[in-house]
Each structure stands twice: as C-alpha cells, then as structure tokens.
C-alpha cells in the first residue's frame, strides 16, 4: 500500500470515528433533553390539573351530598380541567378517563428514568402500550377524605419517531461529511504524493544512465526542498560522470597517441635492423642505418622519460617553497647546451620571491617551455633571445620566433599535437612536451595562458594559484 493511501485511510478512519462519537453524543444529549422537557411538561400539566381539580372539588363538594351527587360533582370538577390526556382514578377505578387504558396498571410495569432530572421522578413513568410510547405523570389528591389519583398520560410516539428521524438525518449527514472528507483527504494526499512519484521516476531514469534528467517538482514544502536537493545531487552525479568519462576518453586518446607515435620509430628500427641482417650493404650504408637506429632509440628513450613523468604526475605532487631565483638557475643550467646548439640566448628575470611548487616538476615545466621557445627560431641571425620571467606567481617564457597560428593555439597542449609535424620531428619533438607542461600546471592548480601571433613570437604564462 502506498504512503498516500495509508495516510488517507488513517485520516478517514479518524474522521469517521470523531464524527460518529460526536453525533452519538449529540443525539443522546438531544434525546435526553427533549424527553426531559416532555416529562417536565407532562408532570407540570398533571400537577396543574390535580391542583385545579382538588381546589374546585373541595369547594363544591359537601359532606352532606349523597355519593352519587358527589361522584357527579367530582367528575364535573375534573372534566372542567381535563383534556384527552387526563385520567382520574379512585381506589383502582376510573372516575373519569379520556383514554381506554388503565394507568394504574401501567405504573407498575414501566420503569422510571433513573437519569431524569426531575425531582419527583418516581411520579413519572414511561412505557410502551399497544405499540405507542407513553409518558405518564401521576399524583394523589384528597377530596373530602377521599383519595383520588390524577394521571396525565401523553403519547410521545411522535417525539420518539422524530428522534429516530433526527438520528437518521445525523447519520446521513455524518456519512456524507465523512465521504466528502475522505475524498478531500485522498485528493490532498495524492497531490502531496505526486512530487514523490515524479522524484522516484527521475531517480529510476538517472539510475538507468540518463544523467541529464531532473525532477520537475515545484512546491514550497519539504518535498520541494527534497526535490531541490535531489536535483543538486543529480547535477553533481552528472558532472562527476562526465568528468570521469572525459578523463577516460582523454586517457584512451593518450594511449592511442602513444601507440601511434611509437609505431613510426619502431618501424624504422625494424626495417633498418632487417637491412643490416639481410642485405649486403656498403660500409657507408651500414653506418647510416646504424645512425638511424640510434636516433630512433634516443627519441624513444626521451619519449619514454616524458611518458613516465606524465604517468607519475597522476599520482600527485608535494609542494614546497622554492626561491624563484634558484628555479631560474636550474632551468638555465639544464638548457645551457640546448640553447648553445641553437645559438639562442636565455635571459632570466625574477625577484626574490618564493614559490610554492614541486621544484623538480616546475623545473621540468620551464625547461620544456624554454626548449620549445628555442625551437621557435628558424636558423638565421637577428634577435635570438628566450626570456624567462618570474614575477608575483606568474612564470612567463617569451620568444620572438615564428609564433603559433591562432587555430593551433588551443590544441598545443594536447598530447602528440604538433603545429608542423615534420618540422617538430626534425627538431626531435615528441609531441609530449607541452602536454607534460599542462599536466604539471594542472597538478599545481595553475592556469596556462598563450599569447602568440605568427611571425611575432610567443609568450606562454603559468599562473600559479594565489
């Protein structure tokens, strides 16, 4: 059973119980009150009748009158006040009666109402006679030493019937009320449960892989808040999944790239080895072949070094304070030969600041940038300077070389991307240098900026986090 059904059912049950108890209590109270009023009226009527009768009879009756005269007078006096409810009895015999029943017989059978509010409750009797509900009040009066009993017998069948009718109306109204209430509660609960169903559906679709799904629930209650949290969570899940698949895709491309890049040197090595094995070569050819093999192996070796660095980088780094000047000196030392070979000058400019970085990796990053900058110069004269500046957490390597075309600038940090592949290869490029730069920058939480124009040179900036 669903939650909203449970809630609706229990609400309806409570409502029904409350209505039933209230209705019953009201009915009982109304019945009690109405019957009490009838009793009091009946009793008052009887008392009135008895008093009037006894006063008049006492006034008219004389001891001297004969019994017959006296009887007539008594009857006369009684009838003056009596109506169709009145009965006068003397010694078990009816003197005057508007009814065909014997009230004295009734008095014994019908029980008085114990909870009646009447003081003279013992004088009031209720009962059923020939299918009719009867209310009877009685009292004795003395007329000339003779004891008379005055009865007022009221037919209260209609009142009882009205009470039953009232109860029925109450029942109908109550049932209607409970029904309407049940309907309202059900609707409300259902409406309340709808967002939960929407949430549940959204959760199922997300579990099925549709990470873009959001729960369309707009309400200001707790369910609305839950939906908002749910959507926030779904967003986070989607982001993480996207990041993961992006990482996986990058790795896949990277491995594909590595394999691709290894194929050409391996093919060359294989072909030259076979040549040396199988072909009668001249001494010059043999030397050339061996040189090819050596060069390819050297390239593979440097590529492997860089790959190893890329892979170890993924396992995290340790940052320590590094004086900028020391870093610049280390870069100068390790690029001295490279720069000299290309007839390029390295100028460094840095203050006394201390960077928070992994010194070896940051050196590797700068060496790669400086090496690249050096390669940007085509053979020839003119200004051949590479400038390394470290100021306020920004490391910049600038050259005035051939520059990078705008469309290539976004891609230069991709593994194995080369702006001019054959030119890079001739200069011993692996296509991994700038990829490594990006990896190191990422590991430091640093941002990379490229500022370059073809023919005017390039500046690459590493912005360390503040």
């Amino acid at each position, binding site marked *: 059973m669903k939650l909203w059904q449970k809630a609706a059912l229990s609400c309806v049950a409570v409502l029904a119980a409350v209505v039933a108890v209230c209705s019953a209590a009201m009915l009982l109270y109304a019945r009690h009150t109405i019957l009490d009023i009838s009793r009091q009226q009946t009793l008052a009527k009887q008392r009135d009748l008895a008093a009037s009768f006894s006063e008049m009879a006492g006034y008219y009756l004389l001891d001297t009158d004969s019994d017959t005269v006296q009887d007539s007078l008594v009857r006369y006096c009684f009838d003056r006040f009596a109506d169709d409810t009145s009965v006068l009895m003397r010694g078990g015999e009816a003197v005057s009666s508007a009814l065909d029943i014997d009230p004295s017989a009734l008095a014994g059978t019908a029980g008085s109402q114990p909870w009646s509010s009447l003081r003279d409750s013992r004088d009031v009797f209720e009962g059923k006679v020939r299918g009719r509900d009867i209310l009877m009040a009685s009292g004795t009066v003395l007329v000339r030493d003779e004891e008379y009993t005055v009865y007022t017998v009221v037919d209260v069948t209609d009142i009882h019937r009205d009470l039953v009718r009232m109860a029925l109306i109450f029942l109908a109204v109550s049932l209607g009320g409970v029904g309407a209430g049940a309907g309202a509660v059900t609707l409300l609960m259902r409406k309340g449960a709808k967002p939960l169903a929407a949430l549940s559906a959204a959760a199922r679709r997300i579990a099925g892989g549709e990470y873009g799904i959001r729960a369309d629930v707009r309400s200001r209650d707790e369910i609305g808040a839950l939906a908002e949290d749910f959507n926030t969570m779904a967003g986070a899940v989607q982001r993480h999944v996207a990041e993961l698949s992006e990482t996986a895709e990058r790795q896949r491309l990277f491995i594909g790239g590595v394999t*691709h890049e290894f*194929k*050409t*040197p*391996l*093919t*060359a*090595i*294989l*072909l*030259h080895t*076979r*040549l040396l*094995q*199988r*072909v*009668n*070569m*001249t001494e010059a*050819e043999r030397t*050339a*072949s061996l040189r*090819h093999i050596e*060069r*390819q192996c050297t390239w593979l070796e440097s590529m492997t070094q860089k790959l190893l660095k890329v892979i170890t980088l993924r396992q995290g780094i340790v940052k320590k304070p590094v004086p900028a000047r020391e870093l610049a000196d280390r870069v100068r030392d390790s690029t001295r030969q490279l720069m000299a070979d290309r007839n390029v000058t390295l100028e460094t400019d840095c203050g006394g600041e201390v960077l928070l970085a992994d010194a070896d990796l940051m050196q590797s990053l700068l060496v790669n940038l400086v090496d690249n900058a050096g390669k940007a110069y085509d053979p020839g004269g003119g200004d051949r300077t590479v400038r390394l500046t470290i100021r306020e957490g920004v490391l910049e390597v600038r050259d005035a070389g051939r520059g990078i075309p705008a469309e290539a600038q976004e891609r230069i940090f991709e593994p194995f991307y080369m702006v*001019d*592949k*054959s*030119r890079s*290869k001739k200069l011993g490029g692996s296509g991994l240098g700038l990829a490594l730069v990006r990896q190191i920058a990422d590991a430091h939480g640093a941002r990379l900026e490229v500022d370059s124009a073809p023919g005017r040179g390039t500046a690459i900036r590493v912005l360390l986090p503040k």
Partner: protein
Amino acid sequence: MSNRILIVEDDEAIASAVTLNLQVAGYDCAAFDDGEKAARSLAEDHAYDLALLDIMLPGIDGFELFDHMQRYNIPVIYITAKTDSASEIRGLRDGAEDYIVKPFDMLTLMVRIEKVLRRTGRLNTVYRVRDVELNSETRTVTKGGRIVYLQPMEFDVLLLLMKYKNMTVTREQLMTEVWGYDYVGETRVLDIKIFSLRKKLDLGDAIRTLPKLGYRLEDR
C-alpha cells in the same frame, strides 16, 4: 627494365630503409618527404609503376596525393600508422590497391608490391644478375645470351634469389616457397640445387652461403 617506384614518406629513417631495400632488390626508386613536392615532381616525371604513400604527410596528405596518382594511372599502396578502420575504408574505396600498417616487415611489403605490379600488368618479369638473365614469364634463363637449361626446382630457387637479390633468403623461405609448406624431406636437396646453379651459371661467388641462415645472390 626494372620497375620504378615512387615513395612519399616524411619519416627519413623509414624512407631510407625502404628505398635502400627496394634498390638492392633491383627496383628503381624516387623518394620524397613532402606531399607537395611529390605532387609537383609528377608534372615532369610520372613514369612510375607504383606509389607507396604515407597518409600523414606535410604539405598535402596521402589521400589527396592519391588523386594526382590517379591522373597518371599510378597504382597506390598506402603506408599508414593509422589502424582505425575509417582511414582504411577511405583509402581502399578511393581505389588504392592495398595498404600496409606500421610497423611492417619489408618482405611483406615486397610481396604486396609484386602482387600489385602483377595485377596491373606492370611487373617486370626479367631479372638480371651479371650476365645471367631470368624471364619468369617464359621460364627461361640465359647466360651471355645463350640459353641455359635448368631443372624446374633449380629455376624456382634462382627466381627467388633473383627476386630478393642482395637480400638474404632463408633456408626456410626457400623450402616453403619452392617445395611447399608440407615438405618434410632432407634440406640437403636445397644445397644440391644451389651447387648445380653455381656450376651451370658460373655464379660461385655471387651466390653467397650464409651459414645457418640461407643464401644471398649478390651483384653489388
């Protein structure tokens, strides 16, 4: 006349190895390391029997270069490091004869070159070492213009040595190519054929024995 092959490959090491290998085997080769240069040279000289094209090339790539080859009716074999099927499909649908994926073996490449040349009717069927000439069509061998009669097996051994001249042909290769895969007999039969070839054609010093490896027919 030997077959002329155009090689367009930007990796110098590979280009040099392929060129040298084809040259010693008797092919005439021209190599370019740039697609554009190769395309330009075609205008002047397009008498090639086959082109070996790398796909990733500076200037214009192998696919584009293919159109130039078609203009001069030169069959193409692609050399590629791309293993993704998309480029293979594109390469072959365009009408390339074959493709070979790096890293490849020179013997495989030579077999494919020969197949393409044969299919396109360009295969040079006359092999020459010193004054010995072998015609694989007519299955005749001449020495100094005079016909020399060889046994079928001797002819097949000589054909293989000539096809891969200046290259070591292994005993296994000779056995399987001439006698068939399932040959389980004495390999001494090979030594006997070589002995008689040397004698009949006076190639005693040209057919070199490489102990434990095989034989090499040298003319350089």
